[in-house]
């Protein structure tokens, strides 16, 4: 025996670890122990193997890595003696889980031990198999376990039954092999075997329809008899829990009856009597009795029970609900949720009690009760329940407010009888929990407000009042700022006063004050501030007397460090300063937001919206933020057309790049030229066109005319024309949003250094187009569609023979930076005469330094092949170090002839 490898005893090691005063000391002790265990392992020390493994288990429990000891478990299991095997199997179950490859190596030892003559060794193997077996092992060892089910020894039988459960869960196909042996287990007298057998039958019912039918036929009467026997049995000290014989057996057999009686009238009828007996006779003063009653109620609710039995069950729940024990109240609430489907009237009777539970001090009970209340709401009680919940919102815990507010919002949305009520309730919620509601909630509210013209005045006044008291609730502030921007004049003039409303007198300067506070408050985020700027711009036209003051505020914001705010203030300032003549039309009220489109968008993009929201969130530069509703109010419709312009105009505009500079930055030039055009009736539209798009004015009027006509049409059906944009994928943002983004794109690029370079930037697509050879080549040269310091995109083209209008593009994205990009998403929009089909990308992760690229294929169908060239706008969203980043651009250097 080597005296140096023996190390300390297990007990000494535990003492040493417990004596450690700091985490560092503990780590040192553990490191030393691990080192000596490793040494022992490498010396293949036999004598202390079991002790070392026991130590490793303790170390493992403390959270240290112990993978090096895994093979020791296998060696101990392979040993002959019981003590080695016992500790070996324990180590196997503790140190390994079913997903580790090492586990496969143990299959053979397990097989041998399952056939061992010693029942305790068989028991160890069954236990290990039952706790950690994988699907492969289940397949391999199922025959052994099946055989063991038939052995006489109850210890092995019950373990084999539970082991079978694991096997069926891993490989449901094996269920039918077990149904015969399982049914015969129910004839046993030993409680352990019965419990395990009943459990196995229940699991078989879940795993296979065939097994369910078989067991229903063969076991319904047996299970009823078991329940009868156990509930009528005399005092049995071995199984007694608080005066009840074996509550565990009660509960398990009740659960099996639940499975067997579900949707089967005959079986259910057979059970009625015994269920009634258990439901009435079980003592309910101890937890064990209540557990049985609870299971019994669940079974009654689940099977085709008689109405009398159901009344009995609901009454039990009523008793539970008024119990003082929180556990009992919790399960009552839980069960009442299921009872609603059976008898909602009976549950409604307990509404007051349930409402009290919403206000309980226990979070688990509150949560259950709130969910239950949500199910109880209907047209008749909706008003009073909402009132109660909103009242409670005022006093509830901070961490419960989010759940509660979300539930109130969905009740209000679902049941609101009229818009006035909806707006009132939402304002209350936002005033109390405006920091806790999701963005969708206030977006929806704005859509509703916009759709209720008769309530505009009332709403803006209510918001103004609410803002006096709850100015810290961010969604309330946003809605208020938006409404003040839109309907600020109604605030002053008291337009559309409702009967119940108290009139208020507000001066124009008060209104500006409120918005200015929102803009400058420390806690306001970029979205709120940006919305405030838009509101101020709108107010500058509504309240001409305050125009100068607004201009001052704007000028202060010109120095904002946040690019978005800086940009807005500069743009808006120039509108106020230089474009008095068009300002009123630029800041006209938003057209009514289309409710059905909004709802559709909300329903359709709910999973995707998270992604797109993330994508549009402020990147590190603060360049682009998501600004729904409040910002695209310039005019939502004409923006759609802006995207189209490029495609038609590219050939012509190539010649006159110089003019762009003026058009992009100085609007003076364009205004006169646009007034001359017959179709450009609304100046606001034109300004935007000039601001954002590629050189309309330089194009001869006759070329533009068709476009302007379509523009007009689009004005009439604002959102309908959105589907023109063929969005690349479902995951792409909602139409309005992507509009907004494309709207931001050029202006963003011009922002950082106004001068010549942005123009080049914008137009570099055109320039390269010029350089391209003009001759018709059958094979199209690949192009670099986009290149920035961080990213490069190349396009390779191919045509399908016989289909000249279809172009298949293989896009290759290369990451030029030194950071990996994750959540990479490429989106594209094309003019209406082109159809775009995007296949999924090869990956959404783009490795750094150009090591590996992501490819994605696009298929474009040009319906005007030969007449018009391809054009595309694209947007790239990705994350660098979990920071959202956006890049956008226009691709117009497609080889001619596509």
């Amino acid at each position, binding site marked *: 025996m080597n005296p140096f490898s023996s190390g300390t005893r297990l007990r000494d090691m535990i003492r040493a670890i417990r004596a450690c005063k700091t985490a560092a000391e503990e780590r040192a002790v553990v490191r030393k122990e691990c080192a000596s265990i490793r040494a022992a392992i490498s010396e293949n020390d036999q004598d202390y193997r079991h002790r070392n493994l026991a130590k490793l288990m303790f170390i493992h429990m403390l959270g240290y890595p112990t993978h090096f000891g895994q093979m020791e478990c296998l060696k101990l299991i392979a040993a002959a003696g*019981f003590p080695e095997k016992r500790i070996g199997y324990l180590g196997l179950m503790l140190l390994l889980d079913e*997903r580790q490859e090492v586990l496969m190596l143990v299959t053979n030892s397990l097989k041998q031990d399952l056939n061992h003559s010693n029942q305790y060794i068989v028991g160890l193997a069954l236990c290990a198999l039952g706790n950690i077996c994988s699907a492969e092992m289940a397949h391999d060892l199922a025959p052994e376990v099946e055989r063991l089910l038939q052995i006489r020894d109850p210890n092995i039988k019950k373990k084999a039954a*539970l*082991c079978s459960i694991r096997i069926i869960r891993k490989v449901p196909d094996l269920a039918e092999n077990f149904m015969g042996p399982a049914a015969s287990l129910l004839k046993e007298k030993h409680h352990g075997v019965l419990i395990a057998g009943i459990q196995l039958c229940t699991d078989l019912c879940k795993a296979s329809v065939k097994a369910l039918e078989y067991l229903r036929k063969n076991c319904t009467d047996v299970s009823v008899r078991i329940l009868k026997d156990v509930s009528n049995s005399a005092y049995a000290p071995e199984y007694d829990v608080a005066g009840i014989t*074996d509550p565990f057996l009660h509960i398990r057999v009740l659960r099996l009856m639940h499975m067997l009686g579900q949707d089967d009238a005959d079986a259910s009828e057979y059970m009625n009597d015994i269920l009634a007996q258990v439901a009435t006779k079980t003592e309910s003063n101890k937890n064990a009795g209540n557990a049985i009653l*609870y299971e019994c109620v669940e079974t009654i609710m689940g099977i085709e029970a008689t109405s009398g039995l159901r009344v009995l069950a609901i009454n039990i729940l009523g008793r539970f609900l008024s119990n003082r024990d929180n556990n009992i109240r*919790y399960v009552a609430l839980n069960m009442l949720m299921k009872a609603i489907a059976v008898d909602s009237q009976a549950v409604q009777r307990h509404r007051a009690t349930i409402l009290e539970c919403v206000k309980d001090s226990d979070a*688990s009970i509150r949560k259950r009760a709130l969910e239950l209340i949500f199910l109880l709401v209907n047209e008749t009680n909706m008003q009073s329940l909402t009132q109660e919940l909103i009242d409670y919102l005022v006093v509830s815990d901070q961490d419960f407010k989010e759940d509660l507010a979300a539930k109130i919002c969905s009740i209000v949305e679902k049941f609101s009888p009229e818009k006035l009520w909806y707006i009132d309730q939402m304002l209350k919620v936002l005033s109390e929990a405006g920091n806790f509601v999701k963005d969708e909630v206030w977006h929806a509210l704005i859509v509703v407000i916009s759709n209720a013209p008769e309530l505009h005045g009332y709403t803006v006044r209510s918001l103004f009042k609410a803002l006096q008291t709850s100015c810290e609730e961010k969604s309330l502030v946003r809605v208020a700022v938006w409404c003040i921007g839109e309907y600020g004049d109604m605030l002053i003039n008291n337009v559309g006063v409702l009967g119940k409303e108290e009139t208020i007198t507000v001066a124009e300067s008060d209104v500006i004050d409120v918005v200015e506070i929102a803009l400058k408050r420390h806690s306001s985020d970029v979205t709120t501030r940006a919305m405030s700027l838009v509101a101020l711009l709108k107010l500058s036209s509504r309240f001409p007397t305050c125009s100068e003051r607004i201009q001052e505020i704007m000028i202060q914001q010109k120095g904002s460090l946040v690019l978005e705010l800086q940009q807005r203030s500069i743009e808006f300032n120039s509108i106020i300063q230089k474009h008095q003549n068009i300002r009123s039309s630029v800041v006209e009220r938003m057209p009514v937001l289309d409710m059905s489109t909004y709802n559709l968008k909300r329903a359709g993009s709910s999973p995707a919206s998270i992604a797109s929201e993330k994508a549009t969130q402020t990147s590190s530069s603060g360049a682009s933020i998501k600004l729904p509703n409040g910002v695209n109010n310039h005019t939502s419709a004409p923006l759609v057309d802006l995207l189209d312009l490029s495609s038609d105009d590219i050939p012509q505009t190539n010649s006159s790049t110089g003019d762009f500079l003026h058009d992009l930055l100085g609007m003076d030039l364009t205004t006169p030229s646009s007034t001359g055009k017959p179709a450009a009736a609304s100046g606001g539209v034109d300004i935007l066109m000039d601001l954002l798009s590629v050189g309309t004015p330089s194009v001869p009027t006759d070329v533009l005319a068709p476009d302007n006509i379509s523009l007009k049409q689009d004005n009439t059906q604002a959102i309908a024309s959105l589907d023109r944009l063929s969005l690349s994928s479902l995951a792409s943002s909602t139409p309005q949003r992507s509009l907004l983004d494309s709207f931001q794109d050029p202006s963003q690029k011009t922002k950082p250094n106004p001068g010549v370079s942005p123009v080049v930037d914008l137009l570099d697509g055109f320039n390269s187009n010029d350089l391209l050879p003009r001759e018709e080549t059958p094979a199209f040269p690949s192009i670099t569609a986009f290149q920035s310091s961080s990213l490069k995109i190349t396009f390779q083209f191919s045509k399908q023979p016989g289909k000249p209008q279809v172009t298949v593009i293989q896009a290759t994205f290369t990451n030029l930076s030194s950071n990996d990009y994750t959540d990479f998403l490429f989106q594209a929009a094309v003019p209406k005469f082109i159809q775009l089909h995007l296949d999924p990308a090869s990956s959404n992760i783009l490795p750094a330094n150009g090591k590996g690229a992501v490819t994605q294929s696009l298929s474009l169908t040009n319906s005007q092949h030969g007449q018009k060239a391809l054009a595309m706008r694209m947007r790239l969203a990705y994350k660098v170090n979990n920071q959202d980043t956006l890049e956008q651009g226009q691709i117009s250097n497609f080889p001619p002839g596509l």
Partner: protein
Amino acid sequence: MIHFVLLISRQGKVRLTKWYSPYAQKERSKVLRELSGVILTRGPKLCNFVEWRGLKVVYKRYASLYFCMCVDAEDNELETLEIIHHFVEILDRYFGSVCELDLIFNFHKAYYILDELLIAGELQESSKKTVARLIAAQDSLVETAKEQSGSISNMIAQAAK
């Protein structure tokens, strides 16, 4: 089904963990951190159930130890409480009024008992007596084996002299 069993001391030290559903090592420590944060901070009068990741954790405090079992949402929470109590009573009978130190120094024994009580996350035996008998039988098997090996090594040692 019981997904896992945890014993956590009031100070947040882990005394026993048993996983019946596959959780990777990293997840396990995350679960432990998360749950001990939730459970140890709950007040004494509150209910013994915590909803967690679509499952339910049933816990009960005995002296300085929290016994926690994580079950499916549709399982009977009251019964799970009974199972916890059942386990505690068996431990108590085995160790003779069990305390936290017993479970620290004889953690492997606690695991052996748990293995006689639960397999595959399901209850195996409702009789405390049967569990005690099975454990005792296996313990004596180990003792006999030890004595035998002891006597053999004695013989070898004596022969070598």
